[in-house]
């Protein structure tokens, strides 16, 4: 199951969903559930770690939105190769590392794993472009 691009995509979507739950949980500890379930008309700072988690979620959602079309194009274009599976495996591992490093506030390494995930995405698009026109 971890050897096909669509499965790895579904796995990453699951990881992003879990990151959202962790973010809400961390914010609940600092500002409380009543504020979170209110319409939040007044913005409250959530505290350092929940704010980092919020930025982690934002960044993860963007990464997910960018990689999903690439996986679909590779699959429907019939150009999946072992290297595209490897690229998705690298992508998922890099994004897991990102989601751990960001809340911990570790610089440079976070940027490096972000770049790794980004390059894996670009690679998938380049392979998708080799699909024959129909």
């Amino acid at each position: 199951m971890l050897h096909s691009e669509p499965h790895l995509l579904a796995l990453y979507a699951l990881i992003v969903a879990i990151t959202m739950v962790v973010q809400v949980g961390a914010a609940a500890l600092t500002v409380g559930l009543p504020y979170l379930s209110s319409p939040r008309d007044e913005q409250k700072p959530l505290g350092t770690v929940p704010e980092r988690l919020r930025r982690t979620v934002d960044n993860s959602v963007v990464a997910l939105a960018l990689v999903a079309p690439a996986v679909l194009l590779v699959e429907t274009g019939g150009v999946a190769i072992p290297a595209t599976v490897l690229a998705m495996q690298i992508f998922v591992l890099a994004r897991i590392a990102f989601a751990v490093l960001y809340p911990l506030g570790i610089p440079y390494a976070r940027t490096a794993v972000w770049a790794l995930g980004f390059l894996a995405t670009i690679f998938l698009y380049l392979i998708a472009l080799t699909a024959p026109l129909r």
Partner: protein
Amino acid sequence: MTPELTALVLAALLQVVQLVLFSIPANLELGSDYTTSPRDGQPARKLSQGAARLQRALDNHFEGLILFTIACVAVTLSGKAGTLTAACAWAYLAARVAYIPAYYYGLSTWRSLIWAAGFFATLLMLLAALV
């Protein structure tokens, strides 16, 4: 078309409706001179409470929709679509429709519960695609 993909198309159309629901009051309140400008500075007036809530509901659905899109496509491509995943897809759509008035009218707790219903429906679909 599978029920999951029908729900997905309807969810995307719902997002179009949400965009319209937000952009009409936003343009009326901020003025089209501002909204069509590059928006380098902050607008002279702030959005009303209702329009700001509609904006947050719109932003929230973008996140939900990305996860839901992957869930629908993954269950369809992996051949795992079935009664459970179809029920989840319709539950997601219903939750996202209910989310808009719940946010607009400031129904605390209900909005979070409605959000959670849509979220866990998506989660179940992703799990169904994986196992």
